[in-house]
C-alpha cells in the first residue's frame, strides 16, 4: 500500500446550502443527478478510469447516507486490496472536534491518511462537478513538466470569469499569477478546482498554512498564491470538454436538462469512461396503456401511466393516470397520483404528490424544489 503513485482526496464537505432542501438529509455529493446517478458517481468513476484506486472522501455533513451509498467502493471497482474509497469525517479527539474550516484545512486534517499511503502525487477533487476526465493524462502531464503543482483549467465565457479562480499563464503553460474570483479578470482561463500536487510540496504547504492564523485555509485563496510566491513550478493543464459545477439549484437544474438537449453536450450513452453507480436491483420500468413519454430519462422500477415530457425520473417513480410531468426532475420513489401536474420542479425522494395537485409552472423563472 505504500508508495502508490497518486491518490485522490475528494472534497465532499460542504453542506451545499445553496442546493436548498435537497441536502436536508444528504450531503451534496450524495444528491441524485441524471436519474440514477448521484453527483459523486462522476468523480469516482473518473478515478477508476484513470487508474486511481485510492480515494479519501472528505465529508462532514450528514455522512450516514453517503457512507452507506459508497460502502467499500466496489460500485466503482475501487475495492482493490489495500486501496479503495475511505470516508474521512472530521476527526474528534479528547478536546472535541471541528468542522473543516476550508478546503485546505480539510485535507490538512487528514495528513495521517495520506501519510499512510505516502504517494508521490495527490490529486485534489471536488465532489460537486459533473464531467468525464482522465486524470491519468493530467498526471502524465504533471510528471512530464516535473511540476510541483498542476491546476486543471478551462476556457469559460468572459462574463463568467469573475466567478472563478483565474490563472494567468506564461509560456509553456506555466502559471504566473492566480486571481481568486477577480473583479476584473485578465483572461478567461478558469481553475476547475482540480489539482495535482507533488505530495512533499503539498504536505509542507498544508502544515505552514495550518499554522497561519490569518489564512482562510483555502486552496485557491491561500495555498496556490503561497506556492506561487515561492516560485514553485506550477503549470496549468488545459481541459476541453463538458464540465459543470452544480453547486446551485439553477446550475444543478440546468446540468440535468443538458442531458436531454439535442446537442448531447454530455452524452450518457457514450461507452467511453462509463459512469459507474451503486445500482439498485429494480425491475424494468413499465409503461401503461395510456402513457405518453418523450424527451425524457426514465430509470428502472418506474410505473408510468401518465404523461412525461422533457423530464428525468429516478428509480421506482410512480406516475398515475392523466398525471403530467413536464420540465421536471423526480427523485427515487416519488409517487405522483392521478391527475397531478408537475412543471419545472425538483421533487425529492419519497415525496407523494396528491391527486390533481398542481406544482410549478412551466413558464415561471423559478424552479420549485420540494423535499
Amino acid at each position: 500500500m505504500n508508495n502508490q503513485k497518486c491518490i485522490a482526496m475528494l472534497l465532499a464537505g460542504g453542506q451545499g446550502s445553496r442546493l436548498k432542501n435537497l441536502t436536508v438529509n444528504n450531503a451534496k455529493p450524495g444528491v441524485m443527478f441524471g436519474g440514477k446517478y448521484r453527483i459523486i458517481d462522476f468523480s469516482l468513476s473518473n478515478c477508476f478510469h484513470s487508474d486511481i484506486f485510492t480515494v479519501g472522501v472528505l465529508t462532514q455533513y450528514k455522512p450516514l447516507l453517503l457512507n452507506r451509498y459508497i460502502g467499500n467502493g466496489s460500485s466503482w471497482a475501487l475495492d482493490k486490496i489495500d486501496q479503495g474509497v475511505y470516508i474521512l469525517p472530521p476527526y474528534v479527539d479528547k478536546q472535541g472536534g471541528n468542522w473543516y474550516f476550508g478546503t485546505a484545512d480539510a485535507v490538512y486534517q487528514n495528513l495521517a491518511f495520506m501519510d499512510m499511503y505516502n504517494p508521490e502525487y495527490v490529486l485534489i477533487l471536488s465532489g460537486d462537478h459533473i464531467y468525464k476526465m482522465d486524470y491519468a493524462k493530467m498526471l502524465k502531464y504533471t510528471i512530464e513538466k516535473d511540476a510541483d503543482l498542476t491546476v486543471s483549467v478551462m476556457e469559460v465565457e468572459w462574463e463568467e470569469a469573475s466567478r472563478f479562480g483565474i490563472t494567468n499563464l506564461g509560456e509553456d503553460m506555466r502559471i504566473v499569477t492566480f486571481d481568486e474570483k477577480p473583479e476584473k479578470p485578465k483572461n478567461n482561463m478558469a481553475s476547475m478546482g482540480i489539482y495535482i500536487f507533488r505530495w512533499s510540496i503539498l504536505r509542507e504547504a498544508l502544515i505552514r498554512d495550518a499554522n497561519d492564523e490569518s489564512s482562510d485555509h483555502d486552496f485557491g485563496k491561500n495555498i496556490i498564491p503561497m506556492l506561487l510566491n515561492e516560485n514553485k513550478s506550477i503549470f496549468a493543464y488545459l481541459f476541453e470538454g463538458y464540465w459543470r459545477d452544480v453547486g446551485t439549484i439553477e446550475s444543478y437544474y440546468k446540468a440535468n436538462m443538458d442531458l436531454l438537449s439535442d446537442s448531447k453536450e454530455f452524452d450518457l450513452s457514450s461507452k467511453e469512461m462509463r459512469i459507474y453507480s451503486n445500482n439498485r436491483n429494480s425491475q424494468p420500468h413499465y409503461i401503461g396503456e395510456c402513457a405518453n413519454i418523450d424527451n425524457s430519462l426514465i430509470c428502472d422500477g418506474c410505473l408510468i401511466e401518465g404523461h412525461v415530457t422533457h423530464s428525468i425520473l429516478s428509480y421506482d417513480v410512480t406516475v398515475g393516470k392523466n398525471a403530467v410531468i413536464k420540465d421536471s426532475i423526480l427523485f427515487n420513489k416519488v409517487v405522483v397520483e392521478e391527475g397531478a401536474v408537475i412543471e419545472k420542479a425538483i421533487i425529492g425522494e419519497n415525496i407523494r404528490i396528491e391527486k390533481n395537485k398542481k406544482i410549478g409552472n412551466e413558464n415561471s423563472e423559478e424552479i420549485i424544489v420540494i423535499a
Partner: protein
Amino acid sequence: MKHLVGIIINSPKQKDLELMVRHRSIHTVPIGGKYRLIDFSLSNIVNSGISKIGVIGSYMYRSLVDHLGSGEEWNLSSKSNDLAILHGGKNIKIGEITRINLQDFIDNEAFFTKVSSSVEDVVLCGCNIICNFDLKEAIKFHRENQADITMVHKEDYTGELSDNEAVMEVMDHKVTKLGYSADRRAQSHNVYADMMIIKKELLQNIIEDVKTTGEIDLLDVITNNLENLNIFAYPIEGYFKIINSRKSYFDCSMELLHAEIQREIFHGERKIYTKTKDNHPAIYSVNSKIKNSLVASGTIINGSVENAIISREAIIEEGVKIKNSVIMQNCVIEKDTIIVNAILDKYVRVTSGKVLVGTEKEPLMIRKDSVI
C-alpha cells in the same frame, strides 16, 4: 431458514427453445427485459430465507458463472460460501430424457457432504419456471405435515406441456398419481411445478440406491414409490409458467405486460433479483411513442413501441414500429423498420426499412448476433 439447502437443477434440454439454448445453458436464457430464467427460482429460494444454494450448470457454464458471480446481487455472501455452482449435465443417455438427474448429485458429492451436516430438508427447483412464489409457506406446510416430499403443483395449467413435463393427480393434499405428460394414460393439466421439498435423509438414501438400482431420474424413483412414501402436494395459486418452447417463451413475455401479472411478479413484497449493470437510464427522444411495454435501462427509444419488451441497451431508431415483440439486450433496430410478433435474441441488428412479421401462434425468432 438454516437446516435447508436449495438446489437449482439443470433442466433437460428443451428442444423447442433450440435457437436460444445453442450458445448458452437454459439457466441464462434472457427474459423480461433484464432477467435470466434462473433469476426467478434463485430469488424465490433466497426470499424464503434459505442461504445455502447450489446451482447445477451444464458444460456451457461461462454465462452462468458470469451471471451469478459470488451471488452478492441475490444477497448471498461469498465469505460464508452461500452460493456454489456445481457441474452437471453430463452422463445423459442418448435419447432418454432425465427429468431430475441424480448423477448430478453424485458428481457433486463434495458439495453435499460439506453442507449437509445441519440440513434437514432440500428444496429442488427447476431453472426455467417463471413465478414469484412464497416458498416459505410451502416449507411450513411440508413440516407441519411431516411429509417425506412436498411437490408444488399448478392445477389447470394452461401453458404448453412438452413431453417431459410431469403431471399428477392429487387427493386430500397427497400425490396419488405421477407421470409424464407424454404418457397417454396421464391426461391431466395438473402439472408438477418443478419445485419440491424433500427430506435430506430420503434424498441421500435415494442417491445411495442409484448404485444398485441404476434408476437415475429422481422423478421416476418418486413415481415408483408413491405408495411407500408420504408425498404431499402444495398448490401454487399465482402466476406460473414453464418456459419450454418458443411459444411458451413468447406467451410468458406478453403475459408479463398484463398489469396484474406485472404487479404480482414485480411489485409485491418479494423481489426478483438479477445482476445489475451500469447502464444509463432509458433515453426517450422527442419522437418516441410507447405504450404497454417493459423497458430496461441503457435503452434508447426514438420510435414507436407497443406491447413489447425492450431489453437493456437496445436501440430503437426513428420511424421504427414494434408491436407484440421481445427485443433482447443490445439489439439495434435501425430506421423505419417494422417488427411484429417476433423474438430477437441478443445483439441482433435489423437494418433500416426491413419488415419482420410473425404470427401470435408462431412468433418469428431471430438468432443471436444475426444481421438482417
